[in-house]
């Protein structure tokens, strides 16, 4: 569904490469995870695919067709994005309803009477929330609205930029389950960026591990679960993620166990 070939990104003409030739493919109807520590370039890759960042080298294709850096209006009906922080991704002075209608208006699509109610129900929200402002919603509700906004154009592909990392733990699980259910119902293709192995493992079937602007290893989720990863960085990342929250592992042990 999405093919990325030798993607390179730099911020500014003479600055060093942030993303150094990344290639991967996402199958239709599957979830692909990009995982790595902060600053490894995973969100930058996502922003380039979404069309927010037009200054990239290499090739990005959707459904076999190569894309221009300046995306066409029709592209956005195929690919939508869910942002990390639901407190920053909703317009603070617009009601939920008007934010959900906005994508339809921008794409010059007819606005059906129950479009908003339908999409709110699809993300597990009561349609009566439609006339609230974002500050009258909880973090989890906001993220559901953000997902609804991405879904209202009925795109086959969703780009998810750390969709749960700004939420607290109980809400994270709800949102992840919602995303999993939506994928099953609608046959969506996900490209998920996260630093959280657990989130990736919950949703994705294939995973690419990024470090320093490069993909060091691409592997299946079973290999991640069983710990059978090849690259030393992948092993370190995996053991660090397992040790997270456990008392008995000290940073030094994590390093030595790698």
């Amino acid at each position: 569904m999405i093919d990325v070939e030798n993607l390179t990104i730099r911020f500014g003409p003479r600055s060093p490469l942030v993303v150094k030739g990344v290639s991967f493919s996402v199958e239709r109807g599957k979830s692909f995870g990009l995982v790595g520590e902060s600053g490894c370039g995973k969100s930058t890759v996502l922003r380039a695919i979404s069309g927010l960042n037009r200054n990239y080298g290499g090739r990005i294709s959707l459904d076999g067709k190569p894309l221009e850096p300046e995306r066409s209006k029709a592209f956005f009906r195929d690919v939508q994005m869910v942002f990390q922080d639901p407190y920053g991704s909703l317009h603070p002075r617009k009601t939920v309803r008007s934010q959900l209608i906005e994508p339809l208006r921008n794409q010059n699509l007819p606005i059906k009477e129950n479009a908003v109610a339908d999409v709110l129900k699809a993300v597990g929200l009561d349609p009566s929330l439609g006339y609230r402002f974002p500050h009258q919603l909880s973090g989890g509700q906001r993220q559901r609205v953000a997902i609804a906004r991405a879904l209202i154009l009925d795109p086959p592909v969703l780009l998810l930029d750390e969709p749960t990392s700004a939420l607290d733990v109980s809400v994270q699980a709800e949102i992840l389950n919602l995303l999993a259910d939506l994928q099953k119902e609608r046959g969506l293709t996900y490209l998920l960026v996260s630093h959280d192995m657990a989130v990736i493992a919950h949703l994705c079937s294939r995973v690419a591990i990024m470090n320093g602007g490069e993909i060091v290893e691409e592997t299946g989720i079973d290999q991640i679960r069983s710990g059978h990863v090849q690259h030393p960085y992948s092993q370190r990342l995996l053991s660090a993620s397992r040790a997270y929250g456990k008392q008995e592992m000290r940073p030094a042990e994590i390093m030595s166990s790698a």
Partner: protein
Amino acid sequence: MTMPISHPRPTPPGLRGWLLAPEPKGTLHALLQQFYQGWLKFREHPLGVVGLVVILILIVTAAAAPLLTQYDPVAQNMAIRLAPPSWEHLLGTDNFGRDVFSRIIYGARTTLDIIILVTIIVAPIGLLIGTCSGYFGGIVDEVLMRITDIFLSFPGLVLALGFAAALGPGITNAIIAISLTAWPPIARLARAETLSLRQMDYIAAVRLQGASSGAIILRHILPMCIPSVIVRVTLNMAGIILTAAGLGFLGLGAQPPWPEWGAMAATGREFMLDSPWVIAAPGLAIAAVSLAFNLVGDALRDVLDPRGGE
């Protein structure tokens, strides 16, 4: 003494209940609720409320001027020249025997004219230039901001004087002159707001819907700049009123015999020692209205501050 047990407050019935209902039933309902929340916050500033009352008095006075006074503001009567305040002439008469009270009342219309016209000229120009400059950046930003800098580099009153002198005296030209000097700070403010807004994810989300730049600026960025522009314009209004009065004082504003507070103060100056009411009345009116706008602006800043509350 027993402590009262606090029950969860039931939603009050009637209009208040409707305004505080947790589930707005429509867009208008939601907007009115927002407005009501704002009013509740505004009400906590007693000085702001005082200022608002003064502004309301100004508006009512301007609207109902013929009902509030029996005298024609321009009718001269040399027989009662410079008469002191009395029950017949509440604020006395001026050097042509015109009733000062009715001139103040009708002068409120002139002042309100200036306020409204300057606002509807200045706010859109400033907003449009500022948001375009901030959103597009690069060469557009450079050109628009250098133009703004040119206007900003002159003191407002001097620039207004220059324009008023060049365009010729008269109330319309005074309004144009004041507007030309009042938009640059608004543009600067809108630009600064836009610079931080365009980094926000909710603007990125709209870009990812394929929205045009025009739609993004008008529908998504502009509404976010409006609150701070309202505050700025309200706080600048005192300066605008004083500039208008200054132009009137120098004979470049409203032309005699039409009553304008600045021009009235200018005539009163000659008789200040013998007949102080001629200058005191318009002076106090100018001071009261300017102060009122400042107080309201201060209170509005707290109410509309995007960082407060939400």
